């Protein structure tokens, strides 16, 4: 009985968090969508640059000491087929979270696609080890709560470098936090299953570091200023991903004035 009631409390709490936190996030972020006017040299809204640089140095030290060596070991010892399976398995586990975000964005087509993939991969794909959806030509409509906020009209806010998680914007930082609660899977799985889920996702972080190893190495260790490079690359690729759904025309209240991102096709022939 106490078990059941604590379960109910747990569920209520999750509901509360999934509904109320986004609302608060929107309120907080709409306040920070208009920054205090600080703009870094690249035209990037980065009022916390000094703090961010300290976090960047920390993240780089963690990468050098732990993540990079682990990913190299992983790359050398794990067979390619198994790497793909780990990646598929972890990806499948994050699909329910994507479906929730598809729905919050009103993207019903995306929700149907991702649900289909989840059902196919969880059954015919041996609990997600094989990406049957991909083989059948059904690609994931990758999304997260940061994108949901974007769709809801929240500006990206200032640039942030998060400990362990790396580059983000204020909007994406809130999104990552909220996404702990948008995944319905932890509620549906048993304790042991959840341990496996968390373990697989941790291994997948190492796998991703291995997969993009050379590119990440070149940004972190070969750039003259790895902080400025990773900031620029993160913002560009994130904005590109968010515009990919035809949202490129959405106005970003932050990106006005002299921001070079206003005009990614800047004309170098103009003097």
């Amino acid at each position, binding site marked *: 009985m106490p078990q059941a009631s604590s379960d109910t409390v747990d569920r209520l709490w999750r509901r509360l968090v999934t509904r109320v936190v986004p609302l608060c996030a929107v309120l907080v972020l709409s306040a920070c969508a208009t920054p205090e006017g600080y703009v870094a040299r*690249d035209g990037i809204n980065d009022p916390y640059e000094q703090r961010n640089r300290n976090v960047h140095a920390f993240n780089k030290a963690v990468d050098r000491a732990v993540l990079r060596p682990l990913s190299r070991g992983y790359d050398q010892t794990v067979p390619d087929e198994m790497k793909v399976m780990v990646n598929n398995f972890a990806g499948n586990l994050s699909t329910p979270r994507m479906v929730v975000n598809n729905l919050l964005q009103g993207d019903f087509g995306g929700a149907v696609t991702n649900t289909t993939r989840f059902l196919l991969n969880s059954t015919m794909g041996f609990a997600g080890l094989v990406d049957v959806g991909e083989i059948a030509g059904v690609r994931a409509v990758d999304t997260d709560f940061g994108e949901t906020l974007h769709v809801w009209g929240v500006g990206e806010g200032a640039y942030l470098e998060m400990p362990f998680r790396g580059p983000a914007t204020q909007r994406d930082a809130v999104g990552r936090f909220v996404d702990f609660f948008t995944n319905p899977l932890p509620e549906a799985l048993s304790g042991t299953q959840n341990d496996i889920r968390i373990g697989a996702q941790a291994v997948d972080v190492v796998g991703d570091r291995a997969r993009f190893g050379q590119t990440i190495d070149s940004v972190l260790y070969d750039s003259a200023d790895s902080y400025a490079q990773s900031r620029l690359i993160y913002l560009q690729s994130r904005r*590109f991903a968010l515009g990919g759904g035809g949202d490129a025309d959405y106005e970003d209240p932050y990106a006005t004035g002299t921001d070079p991102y206003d005009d990614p096709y800047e004309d170098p022939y103009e003097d």
Partner: protein
Amino acid sequence: MKTDVTRRFTISSLAAGAGLAAFGATLPAPAMAMTRERAKTLVDALVADINGVIASGKSEQAMYTDFERIFARYADVPTIASYALGVDGRRASQAQMREFTTVFQRYISVKYGRRFREFIGGQIEVQEARAVKNFYEVKSLAILRGQAPFEVTFLVSDRSGRDLFFNLFIEGINMLLTERTEIGAMLDRRGGNIDAMIADLRASA
């Protein structure tokens, strides 16, 4: 596939040349406006060359030499280099500018050659071209094994006097902006000394 595109390119350039020669008898050499077809033709040839290199199975160093040749042939390197140097270019002497452009060409070929080397086993397919402002955007798709295809976009113009690309985007990441940040940081590290920055750049490639 590669030879096919190259042949088409050669034939169409020959045809254009013949056309020009025929006109030349009566008209002053006309400055033909760039067209969507010409932009696409350039990128078709460029991509065919890149695909040729990544399928060649050559050594890493040999590939970088090939990529440098490709950059020199298809890219407006002086414009890209001077954009990367930004306002600091204004206080550079002509000799420094020449030196920088040469070293930059090698640096950019190796750097982007590394990215293209990750495409080994896959290939790039040219999609469509469209006019944007004063130039053309040509989109292509990198199709790699075990990975969702992603966009590689080239911006093409003839304002250097030839049809050349002056910017490229790999999954939305803008080469001009990225290199301006990098060269700017290299200059900062040397207290703004252009010669020292050029020496560092040479050592890095």
